[in-house]
């Protein structure tokens, strides 16, 4: 188990290195000159040249990549070109709304998706099943920002149940915190619910046809016991897998959601940094996202044996 965990962690290193390389080169080759932006509209060519030299932008690709990577390995994510604040500090300041949004979304999405998957698998082929899966297709096809604006219009602008935008830190009370995140979490989680319930349903339908389900029925088990004691535990591995994979979806969605609801999180930081070509910030957050995604999927791998005794590391 420990050996597997160590090996699994080590195996993420080349992936992280590749991500770092891609992130760096993408921005290196991206059009637009940060020195121009940095120097301002009224700068003379000499001033721009000087800015470029100061920022190290006149060096070769490999030199810039090397020095950036070296710094990253020492925990130095660089300094924002716009605000002159270290990227690590920026991330620290912005992490709470994003973590809150993700956690809340994960919790509600999983609590909603698993029962939906169970109902729809049990009632396979009925109107209830088709209804749930119809919702699934809808949830997956409507872009987050469209859903976000619709929710915002109905529940914030018209009904005034929730704030239109903004974030209340949890330190100011759980109620207001939840209130400020309700609409964003709902908008962000809908496609996630659709994904998990759809995969969960497919897994459960296959499981419900297994011989051991017939055995359970022959023992006198009721639908409740068959679904919860027998089917759900067998479906846990695919469901947990898709939850892990879906975290990638959440990260991408958070950028959009935070922009629509003006949440001061990492997503907003990312969007703003991209618009301003704030390279160090973009690199920092993308690395952070990749790292988080890998960490989540590592955790998923490590908890498999809890659900399926046949998996041993």
């Amino acid at each position, binding site marked *: 188990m420990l050996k597997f965990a160590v090996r699994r962690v080590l195996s993420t290193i080349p992936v992280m290195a590749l991500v770092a390389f891609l992130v760096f080169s993408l921005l290196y080759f991206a059009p637009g000159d940060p020195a121009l932006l940095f120097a301002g509209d009224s700068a003379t060519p000499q001033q721009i040249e000087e800015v470029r030299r100061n920022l190290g932008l006149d060096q070769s690709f490999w030199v810039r990549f090397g020095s950036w990577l070296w710094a990253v390995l020492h925990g130095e994510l660089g300094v924002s070109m716009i605000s002159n604040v270290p990227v690590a500090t920026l991330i620290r300041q912005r992490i709470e709304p994003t973590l809150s949004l993700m956690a809340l979304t994960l919790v509600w999405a999983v609590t909603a998706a698993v029962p939906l998957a169970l109902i729809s698998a049990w009632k396979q082929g009925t109107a209830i099943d088709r209804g749930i899966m119809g919702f699934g297709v809808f949830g997956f096809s409507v872009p987050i920002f469209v859903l976000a604006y619709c929710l915002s219009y109905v529940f914030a602008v018209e009904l005034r149940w929730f704030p239109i935008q903004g974030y209340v830190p949890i330190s100011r009370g759980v109620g207001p915190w939840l209130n400020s995140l309700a609409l964003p979490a709902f908008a962000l989680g809908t496609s996630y619910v659709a994904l998990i319930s759809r995969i969960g349903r497919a897994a459960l339908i296959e499981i419900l046809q*297994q*011989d*051991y389900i*017939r*055995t*359970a*029925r*022959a*023992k*006198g*088990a*009721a639908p409740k*016991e068959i679904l919860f*004691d*027998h089917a759900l*535990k*067998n479906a*846990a591995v695919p469901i947990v897998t898709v939850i892990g994979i879906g975290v990638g979806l959440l990260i991408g969605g958070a950028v959009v959601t935070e922009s629509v609801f003006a949440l001061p999180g990492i997503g907003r930081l990312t969007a703003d940094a991209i618009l301003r070509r704030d390279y160090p910030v973009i690199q920092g957050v993308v690395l952070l996202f990749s790292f988080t995604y890998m960490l989540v999927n590592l955790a998923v791998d490590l908890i498999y044996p809890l*659900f*399926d*005794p*046949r998996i041993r590391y």
Partner: protein
Amino acid sequence: MALLEIENLQTHFRTSDGINRAVDGLSLEVRPSETLAIVGESGCGKSVTSMSILRLLPENITKTAGSIRFHGRDLLKLTESEMRGIRGNEISMIFQEPMTSLNPVLTIGRQIRETIALHRTVSRAEMDGRAKDMLALVGIPDPARRLQEYPHQLSGGMRQRVMIAIALACDPKLLIADEPTTALDVTIQAQVLELLADIQAKSKTSIILITHDLGVVAEIAHRVVVMYAGRKVEEASVEDLLTRPRHPYTVGLLGAVPKIGVGGDKMRLVEIPGLVPNLKQRIAGCVFANRCPKARDLCLEFAPALEQKAPAHVVACHFAEKEGLAA
């Protein structure tokens, strides 16, 4: 009085291209503490019969008629929740596939305790004790350790023993064993059959043994029902049926059993020509007529009734002579 009486059972499936009459007018009875074998080739309706008794067939595509009286109560008329009280409690079932019939993610102990918990109000300690006793009863060494294990840690034969332990955990009156040894290798088959015979001798449980293997029948059955195309074609005591089969189908089945040392290398197995009839079409005459060496025009037109042709020997064939019966 019989423990289980099936009368004119009809189990039909709705399929995309018509009604499949898997069981069509089957009657039989199971007496207390006897082993009744139901024999026939694949698709003859023997498994469907057993699934009909416990009502385990998918209800949306199945139509069942007739009656299945167990202790005088018609199982087909019970509510689903009354039926759950019977399954695993008064009537248990073991299946052909020991490798897949146990839940892979639950411990053996949990799966035995589940049956007990569903039907009895007892403490966890009592359940554990019972589970351990059951494993010991079915001949699993070191039961305390096995209770903690998962199915994948056990061999096929062990798993079938666990299935039997689960089935017997609540002392059922009737055990339905659907091809219990088909998936096991020959030495293990013999052990499992011996175990079933043993348990029956001790606990007086009635057994319905569903099989296509006449060797298994000879081993542990008392009476035999031969099924063909969803119907009973012959019924007799095991000695009678094996030594003096009267239905041409039974004769054919017995001819298809390989015998060691008989006829030498040149001896070929006799097979029954032709195929099982399509159960989606009505059959006017005898169901076996199209494959029967004795068939005449009469057989194609009129279905033979199940008649007593010898003491305790019922046959559905126009050409089975009566014998040993008072006129």
